[in-house]
Protein backbone atom coordinates (compact mmCIF):
# COMPACT_ATOMS: atom_id res chain seq x y z
CA UNK A 1 0.00 0.00 0.00
CA UNK A 2 1.26 3.46 -0.82
CA UNK A 3 2.67 5.71 1.88
CA UNK A 4 -0.03 7.82 3.43
CA UNK A 5 -0.37 10.47 6.06
CA UNK A 6 -3.11 12.53 7.62
CA UNK A 7 -2.49 15.41 9.98
CA UNK A 8 -4.72 17.95 11.65
CA UNK A 9 -3.17 21.27 12.59
CA UNK A 10 -4.85 23.39 15.21
CA UNK A 11 -8.35 22.51 14.02
CA UNK A 12 -11.42 24.25 15.37
CA UNK A 13 -14.99 23.40 14.52
CA UNK A 14 -17.99 25.67 14.82
CA UNK A 15 -21.57 24.52 14.48
CA UNK A 16 -24.02 27.38 14.53
CA UNK A 17 -23.05 29.65 17.40
CA UNK A 18 -21.02 27.07 19.28
CA UNK A 19 -17.39 26.19 19.06
CA UNK A 20 -17.26 22.43 19.50
CA UNK A 21 -13.51 22.09 19.82
CA UNK A 22 -10.44 24.18 19.16
CA UNK A 23 -6.70 23.74 18.96
CA UNK A 24 -6.97 20.11 17.94
CA UNK A 25 -3.84 18.66 16.36
CA UNK A 26 -2.62 15.19 15.56
CA UNK A 27 -0.59 13.46 12.90
CA UNK A 28 -0.85 9.86 11.71
CA UNK A 29 1.62 8.01 9.53
CA UNK A 30 1.25 4.76 7.61
CA UNK A 31 0.13 1.92 9.84
CA UNK A 32 -1.25 4.07 12.66
CA UNK A 33 -4.78 4.17 13.99
CA UNK A 34 -6.56 6.72 16.12
CA UNK A 35 -9.83 6.50 17.99
CA UNK A 36 -11.78 9.68 18.60
CA UNK A 37 -13.65 9.36 21.85
CA UNK A 38 -16.04 11.64 23.66
CA UNK A 39 -19.65 12.03 24.64
CA UNK A 40 -22.48 12.59 22.18
CA UNK A 41 -22.43 15.92 20.43
CA UNK A 42 -18.83 16.69 21.26
CA UNK A 43 -17.93 16.84 17.58
CA UNK A 44 -16.60 13.40 16.62
CA UNK A 45 -18.62 13.21 13.42
CA UNK A 46 -17.90 16.85 12.62
CA UNK A 47 -14.19 16.16 12.99
CA UNK A 48 -14.50 13.17 10.66
CA UNK A 49 -16.28 15.33 8.10
CA UNK A 50 -13.64 18.05 8.41
CA UNK A 51 -10.90 15.46 7.91
CA UNK A 52 -12.78 14.14 4.89
CA UNK A 53 -12.86 17.65 3.43
CA UNK A 54 -16.65 17.64 3.37
CA UNK A 55 -17.01 20.41 5.92
CA UNK A 56 -14.80 23.47 6.27
CA UNK A 57 -12.91 23.84 9.53
CA UNK A 58 -13.54 27.05 11.46
CA UNK A 59 -9.78 27.38 11.62
CA UNK A 60 -6.79 25.15 11.14
CA UNK A 61 -5.75 22.88 8.31
CA UNK A 62 -5.78 19.22 7.38
CA UNK A 63 -2.84 17.67 5.55
CA UNK A 64 -3.49 14.56 3.58
CA UNK A 65 -1.44 12.20 1.46
CA UNK A 66 -3.31 9.26 -0.04
CA UNK A 67 -6.96 8.79 -0.93
CA UNK A 68 -9.76 8.72 1.63
CA UNK A 69 -12.45 6.20 2.34
CA UNK A 70 -15.41 7.10 4.53
CA UNK A 71 -18.04 5.03 6.28
CA UNK A 72 -20.70 6.96 8.14
CA UNK A 73 -24.33 6.37 9.08
CA UNK A 74 -25.43 6.50 5.43
CA UNK A 75 -24.53 3.44 3.37
CA UNK A 76 -24.50 5.30 0.00
CA UNK A 77 -26.06 2.28 -1.70
CA UNK A 78 -29.18 2.58 -3.83
CA UNK A 79 -32.00 1.27 -1.62
CA UNK A 80 -34.14 -0.23 -4.38
CA UNK A 81 -31.28 -2.13 -6.04
CA UNK A 82 -30.15 -5.61 -5.06
CA UNK A 83 -27.01 -5.38 -2.92
CA UNK A 84 -24.85 -6.91 -5.65
CA UNK A 85 -25.84 -4.24 -8.17
CA UNK A 86 -25.58 -1.42 -5.63
CA UNK A 87 -22.01 -2.48 -4.80
CA UNK A 88 -21.24 -2.97 -8.49
CA UNK A 89 -21.77 0.75 -9.08
CA UNK A 90 -18.92 1.57 -6.71
CA UNK A 91 -16.77 -1.21 -8.16
CA UNK A 92 -17.17 0.32 -11.60
CA UNK A 93 -16.15 3.72 -10.21
CA UNK A 94 -13.36 2.51 -7.92
CA UNK A 95 -11.97 -0.26 -10.11
CA UNK A 96 -12.20 -3.96 -9.44
CA UNK A 97 -10.61 -4.38 -6.01
CA UNK A 98 -11.59 -7.19 -3.69
CA UNK A 99 -14.43 -5.83 -1.57
CA UNK A 100 -14.27 -8.73 0.93
CA UNK A 101 -18.02 -9.27 0.56
CA UNK A 102 -17.80 -12.98 1.39
CA UNK A 103 -15.76 -12.32 4.52
CA UNK A 104 -18.30 -9.70 5.59
CA UNK A 105 -21.04 -12.31 5.27
CA UNK A 106 -22.72 -10.61 2.32
CA UNK A 107 -22.38 -13.39 -0.25
CA UNK A 108 -25.91 -14.71 0.23
CA UNK A 109 -27.43 -11.23 0.42
CA UNK A 110 -26.39 -10.11 -3.05
CA UNK A 111 -29.92 -10.57 -4.47
CA UNK A 112 -31.65 -8.76 -1.61
CA UNK A 113 -32.65 -5.13 -2.23
CA UNK A 114 -30.64 -2.82 0.02
CA UNK A 115 -33.76 -1.40 1.67
CA UNK A 116 -34.61 -4.84 3.10
CA UNK A 117 -31.22 -5.20 4.79
CA UNK A 118 -30.95 -4.76 8.55
CA UNK A 119 -28.90 -1.95 10.11
CA UNK A 120 -25.98 -4.29 10.74
CA UNK A 121 -26.14 -5.75 7.25
CA UNK A 122 -26.14 -2.25 5.74
CA UNK A 123 -23.11 -1.40 7.84
CA UNK A 124 -21.33 -4.51 6.53
CA UNK A 125 -22.29 -3.52 3.00
CA UNK A 126 -20.84 -0.05 3.55
CA UNK A 127 -17.63 -1.67 4.79
CA UNK A 128 -17.54 -3.79 1.62
CA UNK A 129 -17.83 -0.56 -0.37
CA UNK A 130 -14.93 0.84 1.66
CA UNK A 131 -12.74 -2.24 1.11
CA UNK A 132 -13.44 -2.17 -2.62
CA UNK A 133 -12.24 1.41 -2.75
CA UNK A 134 -8.69 0.37 -1.72
CA UNK A 135 -8.12 3.77 -0.11
CA UNK A 136 -5.17 3.96 2.30
CA UNK A 137 -6.83 6.35 4.76
CA UNK A 138 -10.02 5.08 6.41
CA UNK A 139 -12.35 7.44 8.21
CA UNK A 140 -14.89 5.41 10.15
CA UNK A 141 -17.76 7.17 11.87
CA UNK A 142 -19.33 4.77 14.39
CA UNK A 143 -18.36 1.67 12.39
CA UNK A 144 -19.63 -0.70 15.09
CA UNK A 145 -23.19 0.64 15.31
CA UNK A 146 -25.71 -2.08 14.62
CA UNK A 147 -23.13 -4.85 14.32
CA UNK A 148 -23.42 -8.07 16.32
CA UNK A 149 -20.52 -9.49 18.36
CA UNK A 150 -19.08 -11.38 15.41
CA UNK A 151 -19.41 -8.37 13.16
CA UNK A 152 -17.69 -6.17 15.73
CA UNK A 153 -14.76 -8.58 16.02
CA UNK A 154 -14.57 -8.84 12.23
CA UNK A 155 -14.43 -5.06 11.77
CA UNK A 156 -11.70 -4.76 14.40
CA UNK A 157 -9.75 -7.50 12.58
CA UNK A 158 -10.18 -5.75 9.25
CA UNK A 159 -9.03 -2.41 10.63
CA UNK A 160 -6.01 -4.12 12.24
CA UNK A 161 -5.18 -5.76 8.91
CA UNK A 162 -5.58 -2.48 7.08
CA UNK A 163 -3.10 -0.82 9.45
CA UNK A 164 -0.65 -3.73 9.22
CA UNK A 165 -0.68 -3.29 5.45
CA UNK A 166 0.33 0.34 5.90
CA UNK A 167 -3.06 2.03 5.99
CA UNK A 168 -4.35 4.64 8.40
CA UNK A 169 -7.62 4.41 10.30
CA UNK A 170 -9.38 7.21 12.16
CA UNK A 171 -12.29 5.79 14.11
CA UNK A 172 -14.96 7.87 15.78
CA UNK A 173 -16.72 5.61 18.23
CA UNK A 174 -18.05 5.75 21.73
CA UNK A 175 -17.82 1.97 21.90
CA UNK A 176 -14.77 -0.01 22.89
CA UNK A 177 -12.54 -0.57 19.92
CA UNK A 178 -9.73 -3.00 20.60
CA UNK A 179 -6.76 -2.45 18.41
CA UNK A 180 -3.18 -2.98 19.45
CA UNK A 181 -1.18 0.23 19.46
CA UNK A 182 -4.14 2.49 18.69
CA UNK A 183 -3.95 6.01 20.07
CA UNK A 184 -6.98 7.61 21.64
CA UNK A 185 -7.95 11.23 21.23
CA UNK A 186 -10.29 12.52 23.91
CA UNK A 187 -12.22 15.36 22.31
CA UNK A 188 -13.23 16.82 25.67
CA UNK A 189 -9.60 17.91 26.08
CA UNK A 190 -10.16 20.43 23.31
CA UNK A 191 -13.30 22.11 24.59
CA UNK A 192 -12.83 25.79 23.88
CA UNK A 193 -14.27 27.05 27.18
CA UNK A 194 -11.41 27.56 29.65
CA UNK A 195 -13.18 25.78 32.50
CA UNK A 196 -13.81 22.78 30.31
CA UNK A 197 -17.36 22.58 31.65
CA UNK A 198 -19.51 24.46 29.17
CA UNK A 199 -19.78 23.08 25.68
CA UNK A 200 -18.36 26.04 23.85
CA UNK A 201 -19.35 29.62 24.03
CA UNK A 202 -22.96 28.99 23.22
CA UNK A 203 -25.03 32.11 23.57
CA UNK A 204 -27.36 30.23 25.88
CA UNK A 205 -24.64 28.33 27.70
CA UNK A 206 -24.02 31.15 30.10
CA UNK A 207 -20.33 30.97 29.49
CA UNK A 208 -18.06 33.66 28.21
CA UNK A 209 -19.33 35.56 25.22
CA UNK A 210 -17.58 34.66 22.01
CA UNK A 211 -14.74 37.01 21.19
CA UNK A 212 -15.17 39.08 18.08
CA UNK A 213 -14.29 37.30 14.89
CA UNK A 214 -10.67 37.75 13.93
CA UNK A 215 -9.87 38.66 17.52
CA UNK A 216 -7.52 35.72 17.64
CA UNK A 217 -9.36 33.63 20.18
CA UNK A 218 -6.79 30.93 19.53
CA UNK A 219 -4.18 33.04 21.29
CA UNK A 220 -5.72 31.90 24.55
CA UNK A 221 -3.74 29.17 26.22
CA UNK A 222 -5.51 26.21 24.76
CA UNK A 223 -4.74 22.59 25.43
CA UNK A 224 -2.85 21.21 22.48
CA UNK A 225 -1.85 17.65 22.29
CA UNK A 226 -2.70 16.55 25.83
CA UNK A 227 -5.68 14.69 24.46
CA UNK A 228 -3.44 12.20 22.74
CA UNK A 229 -2.64 9.43 25.04
Amino acid at each position, binding site marked *: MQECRIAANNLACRRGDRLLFAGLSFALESGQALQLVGSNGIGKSSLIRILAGLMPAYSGTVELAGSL*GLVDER*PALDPHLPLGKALAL*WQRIDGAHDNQAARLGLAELMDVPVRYLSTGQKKRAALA*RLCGQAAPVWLLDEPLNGLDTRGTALVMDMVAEHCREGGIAVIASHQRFDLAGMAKLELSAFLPSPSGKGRGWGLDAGGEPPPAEGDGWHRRPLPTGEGLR
Partner: protein
Amino acid sequence: MSGQFLTLLRRDCTQLFLGGRRGGALLPVLFFLAVAMLYPFAVGPDAPLLGKTGGGMIWVAALLAAILPLDRLIEPDLELGMFDQWALRGISEEWLVTVRMLAHWLSFGPPLMLAAIPASALVGIDAEKLWLVELGLLAGTPGLAALGVMIASITAGLRGGAALGGLLLIPLAVPLIVFGAGSLATGGTSGLALTGSFSLVLLAITPFAAGAAIREGRR
Protein backbone atom coordinates in the same frame (compact mmCIF):
# COMPACT_ATOMS: atom_id res chain seq x y z
CA MET B 1 -13.20 9.53 -17.61
CA SER B 2 -15.60 8.36 -20.30
CA GLY B 3 -16.14 5.08 -18.47
CA GLN B 4 -17.02 6.99 -15.32
CA PHE B 5 -19.29 9.29 -17.33
CA LEU B 6 -21.18 6.33 -18.79
CA THR B 7 -21.46 4.62 -15.40
CA LEU B 8 -22.90 7.75 -13.80
CA LEU B 9 -25.17 8.49 -16.76
CA ARG B 10 -26.50 4.96 -16.79
CA ARG B 11 -27.24 5.10 -13.08
CA ASP B 12 -28.92 8.51 -13.33
CA CYS B 13 -31.02 7.42 -16.30
CA THR B 14 -32.16 4.24 -14.52
CA GLN B 15 -33.04 6.25 -11.43
CA LEU B 16 -34.92 8.95 -13.34
CA PHE B 17 -36.73 6.74 -15.86
CA LEU B 18 -37.83 4.12 -13.34
CA GLY B 19 -37.71 6.31 -10.27
CA GLY B 20 -38.59 3.67 -7.67
CA ARG B 21 -41.08 4.84 -5.12
CA ARG B 22 -40.87 8.50 -6.09
CA GLY B 23 -42.37 7.91 -9.54
CA GLY B 24 -40.45 7.77 -12.78
CA ALA B 25 -40.52 9.45 -16.17
CA LEU B 26 -44.15 8.45 -16.75
CA LEU B 27 -45.54 10.71 -14.05
CA PRO B 28 -44.83 14.12 -15.67
CA VAL B 29 -46.02 12.77 -19.04
CA LEU B 30 -49.34 11.59 -17.60
CA PHE B 31 -49.75 14.90 -15.83
CA PHE B 32 -49.04 16.74 -19.08
CA LEU B 33 -51.62 14.67 -20.93
CA ALA B 34 -54.17 15.14 -18.15
CA VAL B 35 -53.87 18.92 -18.41
CA ALA B 36 -54.21 18.72 -22.20
CA MET B 37 -57.30 16.58 -21.76
CA LEU B 38 -58.90 18.93 -19.23
CA TYR B 39 -58.33 22.05 -21.32
CA PRO B 40 -61.04 21.42 -23.96
CA PHE B 41 -63.50 20.62 -21.16
CA ALA B 42 -62.78 23.97 -19.55
CA VAL B 43 -62.78 26.08 -22.73
CA GLY B 44 -65.62 24.34 -24.52
CA PRO B 45 -65.94 22.78 -27.98
CA ASP B 46 -64.91 25.89 -29.90
CA ALA B 47 -62.45 24.45 -32.42
CA PRO B 48 -60.93 27.73 -33.72
CA LEU B 49 -60.42 29.02 -30.17
CA LEU B 50 -58.86 25.74 -29.04
CA GLY B 51 -56.59 25.66 -32.08
CA LYS B 52 -55.49 29.22 -31.43
CA THR B 53 -54.77 28.83 -27.71
CA GLY B 54 -53.83 25.13 -27.60
CA GLY B 55 -50.14 25.71 -28.30
CA GLY B 56 -49.79 28.05 -25.33
CA MET B 57 -51.64 25.55 -23.15
CA ILE B 58 -49.15 22.84 -24.15
CA TRP B 59 -46.33 25.11 -23.01
CA VAL B 60 -47.99 25.82 -19.66
CA ALA B 61 -48.61 22.10 -19.18
CA ALA B 62 -44.96 21.33 -19.99
CA LEU B 63 -43.79 23.90 -17.47
CA LEU B 64 -46.06 22.53 -14.75
CA ALA B 65 -44.98 18.97 -15.57
CA ALA B 66 -41.37 20.05 -15.04
CA ILE B 67 -42.17 20.70 -11.37
CA LEU B 68 -43.14 17.09 -10.65
CA PRO B 69 -39.71 15.44 -10.78
CA LEU B 70 -37.95 18.19 -8.78
CA ASP B 71 -37.88 16.34 -5.45
CA ARG B 72 -36.19 13.25 -6.85
CA LEU B 73 -33.44 14.92 -8.86
CA ILE B 74 -30.91 15.64 -6.08
CA GLU B 75 -32.44 15.07 -2.66
CA PRO B 76 -32.43 11.23 -2.60
CA ASP B 77 -28.71 11.07 -3.37
CA LEU B 78 -27.92 13.70 -0.76
CA GLU B 79 -29.82 11.68 1.84
CA LEU B 80 -27.98 8.52 0.83
CA GLY B 81 -24.59 10.21 1.12
CA MET B 82 -23.81 9.53 -2.54
CA PHE B 83 -22.55 13.07 -3.16
CA ASP B 84 -20.16 12.80 -0.19
CA GLN B 85 -18.76 9.52 -1.49
CA TRP B 86 -18.30 10.98 -4.97
CA ALA B 87 -16.58 14.02 -3.48
CA LEU B 88 -14.12 11.76 -1.63
CA ARG B 89 -13.26 10.16 -4.96
CA GLY B 90 -12.52 13.54 -6.46
CA ILE B 91 -15.59 13.62 -8.71
CA SER B 92 -16.72 17.24 -8.75
CA GLU B 93 -20.28 18.31 -8.09
CA GLU B 94 -20.28 20.29 -11.34
CA TRP B 95 -19.51 17.16 -13.30
CA LEU B 96 -22.18 15.15 -11.47
CA VAL B 97 -24.76 17.85 -12.05
CA THR B 98 -23.90 17.98 -15.75
CA VAL B 99 -24.47 14.24 -16.03
CA ARG B 100 -27.69 14.52 -14.09
CA MET B 101 -28.92 17.37 -16.30
CA LEU B 102 -28.41 15.20 -19.35
CA ALA B 103 -30.13 12.21 -17.73
CA HIS B 104 -33.00 14.38 -16.55
CA TRP B 105 -33.52 15.85 -20.00
CA LEU B 106 -33.48 12.36 -21.55
CA SER B 107 -36.15 11.20 -19.12
CA PHE B 108 -38.20 14.38 -19.47
CA GLY B 109 -37.74 16.12 -22.84
CA PRO B 110 -38.26 13.39 -25.46
CA PRO B 111 -41.20 11.75 -23.60
CA LEU B 112 -42.86 15.17 -23.36
CA MET B 113 -42.28 15.82 -27.05
CA LEU B 114 -43.89 12.49 -27.85
CA ALA B 115 -46.82 13.25 -25.56
CA ALA B 116 -47.27 16.60 -27.29
CA ILE B 117 -48.52 14.73 -30.38
CA PRO B 118 -51.67 13.28 -28.73
CA ALA B 119 -52.01 16.47 -26.69
CA SER B 120 -52.13 18.58 -29.84
CA ALA B 121 -54.77 16.26 -31.26
CA LEU B 122 -56.87 16.81 -28.12
CA VAL B 123 -56.88 20.58 -28.67
CA GLY B 124 -57.06 20.39 -32.47
CA ILE B 125 -53.74 21.97 -33.44
CA ASP B 126 -52.87 21.52 -37.11
CA ALA B 127 -49.72 19.76 -38.31
CA GLU B 128 -47.88 22.97 -39.14
CA LYS B 129 -48.37 24.39 -35.67
CA LEU B 130 -47.54 21.04 -34.06
CA TRP B 131 -44.21 21.16 -35.87
CA LEU B 132 -43.52 24.56 -34.31
CA VAL B 133 -44.57 23.27 -30.87
CA GLU B 134 -42.21 20.31 -31.22
CA LEU B 135 -39.32 22.50 -32.30
CA GLY B 136 -40.05 24.87 -29.45
CA LEU B 137 -40.08 22.01 -26.94
CA LEU B 138 -36.82 20.72 -28.39
CA ALA B 139 -35.30 24.14 -27.78
CA GLY B 140 -37.00 24.75 -24.44
CA THR B 141 -37.00 21.43 -22.56
CA PRO B 142 -33.19 21.39 -22.07
CA GLY B 143 -33.59 24.73 -20.33
CA LEU B 144 -36.44 23.40 -18.22
CA ALA B 145 -34.35 20.34 -17.31
CA ALA B 146 -31.38 22.51 -16.34
CA LEU B 147 -33.60 24.80 -14.30
CA GLY B 148 -35.12 21.77 -12.58
CA VAL B 149 -31.71 20.41 -11.56
CA MET B 150 -30.55 23.84 -10.37
CA ILE B 151 -33.65 24.41 -8.23
CA ALA B 152 -33.59 20.84 -6.92
CA SER B 153 -30.00 21.40 -5.75
CA ILE B 154 -30.86 24.68 -4.08
CA THR B 155 -33.94 23.38 -2.29
CA ALA B 156 -32.55 19.91 -1.43
CA GLY B 157 -32.59 19.35 2.30
CA LEU B 158 -35.02 22.17 3.00
CA ARG B 159 -38.29 21.38 4.66
CA GLY B 160 -41.07 21.80 2.11
CA GLY B 161 -38.39 21.93 -0.57
CA ALA B 162 -40.67 20.42 -3.19
CA ALA B 163 -43.31 23.14 -2.86
CA LEU B 164 -40.68 25.85 -2.72
CA GLY B 165 -39.05 24.37 -5.81
CA GLY B 166 -42.27 24.74 -7.76
CA LEU B 167 -42.60 28.36 -6.70
CA LEU B 168 -39.02 29.08 -7.74
CA LEU B 169 -39.27 27.33 -11.07
CA ILE B 170 -42.31 29.20 -12.37
CA PRO B 171 -40.87 32.74 -12.42
CA LEU B 172 -37.48 31.58 -13.69
CA ALA B 173 -39.13 29.70 -16.55
CA VAL B 174 -41.07 32.77 -17.72
CA PRO B 175 -38.59 33.65 -20.53
CA LEU B 176 -38.82 30.11 -21.88
CA ILE B 177 -42.59 30.25 -22.07
CA VAL B 178 -42.66 33.79 -23.45
CA PHE B 179 -40.32 32.95 -26.31
CA GLY B 180 -41.47 29.34 -26.79
CA ALA B 181 -45.18 30.04 -26.89
CA GLY B 182 -44.51 33.39 -28.55
CA SER B 183 -42.98 31.64 -31.53
CA LEU B 184 -46.39 30.05 -32.13
CA ALA B 185 -48.13 33.40 -32.40
CA THR B 186 -45.57 34.94 -34.71
CA GLY B 187 -44.88 31.70 -36.56
CA GLY B 188 -41.27 32.79 -36.87
CA THR B 189 -37.99 31.18 -36.03
CA SER B 190 -36.81 34.13 -33.94
CA GLY B 191 -38.89 32.92 -30.99
CA LEU B 192 -37.37 29.47 -31.30
CA ALA B 193 -33.88 30.95 -31.43
CA LEU B 194 -34.51 33.00 -28.30
CA THR B 195 -35.93 29.94 -26.52
CA GLY B 196 -32.86 27.98 -27.47
CA SER B 197 -30.52 30.74 -26.37
CA PHE B 198 -32.19 31.01 -22.96
CA SER B 199 -31.92 27.23 -22.64
CA LEU B 200 -28.21 27.46 -23.41
CA VAL B 201 -27.75 30.14 -20.74
CA LEU B 202 -29.46 27.88 -18.19
CA LEU B 203 -27.41 24.88 -19.31
CA ALA B 204 -24.23 26.90 -18.84
CA ILE B 205 -25.12 28.31 -15.41
CA THR B 206 -26.64 25.22 -13.83
CA PRO B 207 -23.54 23.06 -13.24
CA PHE B 208 -21.87 25.86 -11.29
CA ALA B 209 -24.94 27.08 -9.43
CA ALA B 210 -26.09 23.57 -8.54
CA GLY B 211 -22.58 22.40 -7.66
CA ALA B 212 -22.10 25.35 -5.33
CA ALA B 213 -25.52 24.75 -3.76
CA ILE B 214 -24.71 21.09 -3.06
CA ARG B 215 -21.36 22.00 -1.48
CA GLU B 216 -22.94 24.74 0.59
CA GLY B 217 -25.60 22.29 1.75
CA ARG B 218 -22.90 20.19 3.45
CA ARG B 219 -22.03 22.86 6.02
